[in-house]
């Protein structure tokens, strides 16, 4: 009974939180550019408007991929909330990302195709870091189960500061913010129009937006795990990381995908591996 209550709370609460986070993003971006900016609930108005419009799709399978994307994002968030196997969460989350890529590819539009292939590059560059993050959790607790993190003697961040830095960049890639926002140029009307989501409109696009709201919560949840033993500090770290991503978004310009791949496969991967090597050599155990 308690589980069902939690599921309902996550299903309703997460999009509200994600919507507010998205609104704060737009407001903060506007303030940093010296504008007044839209109201805080603007993402909610956008979604409500999109739901009331006609659904125009190039082919019917587009709708299917969008549903898969939403369902797997929700599934990965629920698995995170229920403290399941972290490796499995990463795999489920990857299925969601790939569904969006395939949805973009299925349209045949050149903008969506280029956006999708760029998103594949993004997946290629952040996935190893996520796997190493899972490995660090395994080395420290002896299991991939997240429930072990709750009764850890000290927070994860104490022993994985380098992976934390790498995860901030992964957050940047995953939220599609500058300098890694080229798979879907999130300000619109740029060289890629809207990247993967170019051919979506109306309710289909609204579903993607709602899935993004869930994704915001899920990704901040990954940062939260660094200090899961004290939830207040964990949430605080998540919020700080999110605000940091918005600031980075506003002070950087877009880079080539080659730059991102070089950055993640050299610096991020190396610092993560150094961290893993340290954990392996010192043999620290949190439990």
């Amino acid at each position, binding site marked *: 009974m308690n589980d069902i209550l939690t599921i309902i709370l996550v299903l309703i609460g997460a999009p509200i939180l994600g919507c507010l986070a998205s609104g704060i993003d*737009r407001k903060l971006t*506007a303030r940093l*550019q*010296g*504008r*007044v*900016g*839209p*109201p805080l609930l*603007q993402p909610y*108005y*956008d979604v*409500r*408007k*999109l739901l*009331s*419009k*006609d*659904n*125009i799709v190039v082919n019917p399978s587009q709708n299917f991929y969008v549903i898969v994307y939403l369902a797997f994002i929700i599934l990965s968030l629920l698995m995170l909330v229920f403290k399941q196997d972290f490796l499995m969460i990463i795999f489920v989350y990857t299925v969601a990302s790939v569904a969006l890529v395939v949805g973009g590819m299925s349209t045949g539009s050149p*903008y969506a195709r280029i956006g999708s292939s760029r998103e594949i590059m993004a997946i290629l560059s952040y996935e190893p870091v996520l796997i190493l993050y899972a490995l660090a959790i395994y080395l420290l607790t002896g299991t991939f189960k997240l429930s072990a993190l709750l009764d850890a003697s000290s927070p994860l961040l104490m022993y994985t500061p380098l992976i934390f830095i790498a995860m901030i960049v992964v957050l940047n890639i995953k939220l599609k913010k500058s300098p890694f926002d080229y798979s879907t140029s999130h300000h*619109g*009307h*740029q060289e890629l*129009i*809207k990247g993967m989501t*170019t*051919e*979506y*409109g*109306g309710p289909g*696009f609204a579903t993607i937006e709602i899935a993004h709201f869930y994704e915001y919560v899920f990704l901040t949840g990954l940062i939260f795990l660094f200090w899961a033993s004290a939830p207040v500090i964990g949430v605080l770290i998540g919020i700080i990381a999110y605000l940091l991503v918005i600031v980075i978004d506003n002070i950087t310009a877009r880079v080539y995908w080659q730059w991102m791949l070089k950055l993640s496969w050299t610096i991020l991967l190396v610092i993560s591996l150094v961290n893993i090597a340290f954990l392996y050599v010192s043999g620290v155990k949190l439990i």
Partner: protein
Amino acid sequence: MSLAKSPWIIHVNCNSCNGCDIEVVACLTPLYDAERFGVINIGTPKQADIMVVTGSVNYKNVNVLKNLYNQIPDPKVVLAVGACASTGGIFHDCYNVVGGVDQVIPVDAYVPGCCPRPEAILDGVVAALSILENKKKGNIKGKEVKLKGNEVPSNA
């Protein structure tokens, strides 16, 4: 009221001299900040609500304009910005010019001027919003415009 709170525009340049275009872009800059009304200049017609057209229509782009209009999901409105988009302007009797935008697709609101001030364009967008709401309430769908090669409209 949901439509009025987030009008996403698609900006179409039909043979414009760029005068009206930079005024449209000026609306989106921090000075006028159209985003505070929820306006986003979206690139794709599939996500747009308001079609902002600048410049007179000529035979080269008449099909492009029709194509873009057909791809916007209902409810939608068309806003003709500037003298050229409204009537053809000083180009109305050129041999390659069809005329104003209303010769090709149904136009809901006009913003006159050469070129119109950003305030006037924002006024036009706000006027388009109430039309958009009415269309939503009355469930008025935009008619699909047939693509017809280089055919000359009857009253041109």
